[in-house]
């Protein structure tokens, strides 16, 4: 056992003790604070907040303090300090920045308040101060997208020659990096003869992705598949292909958005990864509750994000975002 894991274990143990002691004192009502990244900037985060509040209201043992950092690191750090001052029992944080929030997270851990990171993890050097991470496994998501694409190539019998381009998320964002890595590592394992010809960022932006795809279409006469880091960008790329009259390209995304779902229903878009902000929010709250109840929670507490394609989309309801 190295120093880091010893420290992590101690932190977790203290948190559990604190939680157990607390549950005894107050007859089970837990006060959980959350500081979110940027509610309202996209539909995912908006839906997440609504689902979180709804889930907390359903549970009578839980009281919540819901805050939003508006994408501002300084404000999030101040909110962390407020929550520590208010002496909440646990803090859930959706980091605005994986590095900059670490000191605030450490402060909470030192005040014996367990911190649960939700949706996107903080940087590794802060792991010691985190009780658990609750969120999607983006590497698996990237890998699953690669499998969806490869399966489709095999169905069409072009797995020996297909050429793929990738439109990734914003450079430097953990989610973008992990999805790209998952995809790039898995694709040659399942479809060794498929070539990934180029990767360019679409910055999570549909318009930017459309421009990138327009350039790809000019540059490459033969594109069989497009992997986009989320459906927003995937649909941007699809728009570009449609405008250029290029048919038969297989589009696979991640984080199934309503537009992606509709494009799948229309038969233009092949598949994606179903990631529900409702599951995300409920998983974060449940993780916090479990920790406060002294239960054993894995450090990386992923919720499942299944594959969705035109073939099985009936099993999923259309995303609300």
């Amino acid at each position, binding site marked *: 056992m190295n120093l880091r894991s010893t420290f992590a274990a101690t932190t977790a143990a203290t948190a559990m003790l604190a939680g157990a002691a607390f549950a005894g004192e107050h007859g089970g009502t837990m006060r959980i604070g959350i500081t979110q990244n940027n509610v309202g900037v996209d539909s995912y985060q*908006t839906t997440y907040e609504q689902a979180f509040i709804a889930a907390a209201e359903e549970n009578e043992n839980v009281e919540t303090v819901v805050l939003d950092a508006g994408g501002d690191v300084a404000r999030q750090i101040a909110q962390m300090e407020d929550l520590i001052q208010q002496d909440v029992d646990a803090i859930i944080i959706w980091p605005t920045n994986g590095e900059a929030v670490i000191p605030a997270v450490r402060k909470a851990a030192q005040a014996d308040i367990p911190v649960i990171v939700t949706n996107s993890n903080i940087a590794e050097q802060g792991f010691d101060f985190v009780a658990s991470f609750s969120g999607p496994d983006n590497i698996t998501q990237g890998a699953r997208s690669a499998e969806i694409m490869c399966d489709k190539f095999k169905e069409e019998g072009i797995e020996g020659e297909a050429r793929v381009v990738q439109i990734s998320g914003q450079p430097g964002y953990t989610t973008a990096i992990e999805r790209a890595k998952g995809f790039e590592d898995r694709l040659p394992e399942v479809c060794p003869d498929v070539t990934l010809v180029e990767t360019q960022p679409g910055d999570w932006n549909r318009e930017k992705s459309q421009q990138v795809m327009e350039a790809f279409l000019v540059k490459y006469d033969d594109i069989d598949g497009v992997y986009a880091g989320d459906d*927003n960008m995937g649909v941007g790329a699809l728009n570009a292909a449609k405008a250029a009259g290029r048919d038969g390209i297989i589009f696979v995304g991640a984080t199934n958005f309503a537009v992606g779902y509709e494009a799948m229903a229309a038969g233009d878009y092949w598949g994606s990864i179903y990631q529900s902000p409702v599951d995300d929010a409920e998983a974060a709250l449940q993780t916090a509750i479990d920790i406060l109840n002294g239960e054993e929670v894995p450090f990386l507490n992923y919720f499942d994000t299944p594959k969705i394609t035109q073939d099985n989309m009936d099993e999923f309801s259309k995303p609300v975002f």
Partner: protein
Amino acid sequence: MATLSKQKIGSVLAKQGILIAFAVFIVAFTLANNKFLTVDNVFSVVRSSAILGVMALGVTFVVISGNLDLSVGSMMSFSTIVVLDLHDKIGPFLAIPAMFAMTLCLGAFIGILVGYLRLNSLIVTLGMLSAIHGLTLTYSGGQNMDIADKEGTWFSVFGQGTALGIPVPILIFALLAAVLGLMLSRTPFGRKVYAVGGNGTAATFSGIRRARTVFMCYILSAFCVATAGLIQASRSLGSQNTVGQGLELEVLAAVILGGASLMGGSGTIFKTVIGVLILGFIQNGLLLLGLQFYVQYVVTWVIIILAVWLDIAAKRGRLWSPIA
């Protein structure tokens, strides 16, 4: 004789430094990638530059009048979200004028603050950048906005249509550039804009209503932003709340690249168009070269600074500043 023609060439070069820079980039990229100068690619670049370009036309007026407009990015997000939302609620025929009216109100508000109250335009529009973003989010509730029936609406014509074989966004951009170019160079209003930006006090004493001129510049800018929002909305028939985020700096870069002075009083619509095209072709060219994208950020700005340098060097006839 030799000196004369040298001077002549010098003065021609001085006026067209940015055009020379443009030509240099085009030749360089064409040599590097044979797909760069194809009709398809040129259309695709100009079409996607049209949104930025239309916004830059309006901002040119504001900059020449000696002010700044940093709110155009979030104002464009606002227009896009509003027109998409209203499209499904009241139909495109009413949605478009309603969106224009709402965007012009924002422009009028900024125009009053900067023109009539004489507040610093940097502060006002920086504040409006954030305020309008908040307004957009409040309006949409943070949700993405999408048109329900994407196949069955004629609304897509502004962003995706073609007329006479030319994409409609390019036509809108060209038409607006022609009209605003004439307005700036051939009408009394245009001369007032230069006068106000060149020397506001002198303009006031010569009977120009400075406040009204500045106000009109912001109205024009808002009109251009609304047009850009229309193209954007029509191009993708759906949008995030942050669609225009960061565009204000690219717009400003294009305008300054075109040679408009941040101090006001100089600049032309034609050169702004060149500035827009340079930005568009750089981004496209680097993509076609397949440069790693981390490098692209750096190279883009190196090229922009090179272009500005070439422009200034041509104007003063030497590479280095004589008084450095």
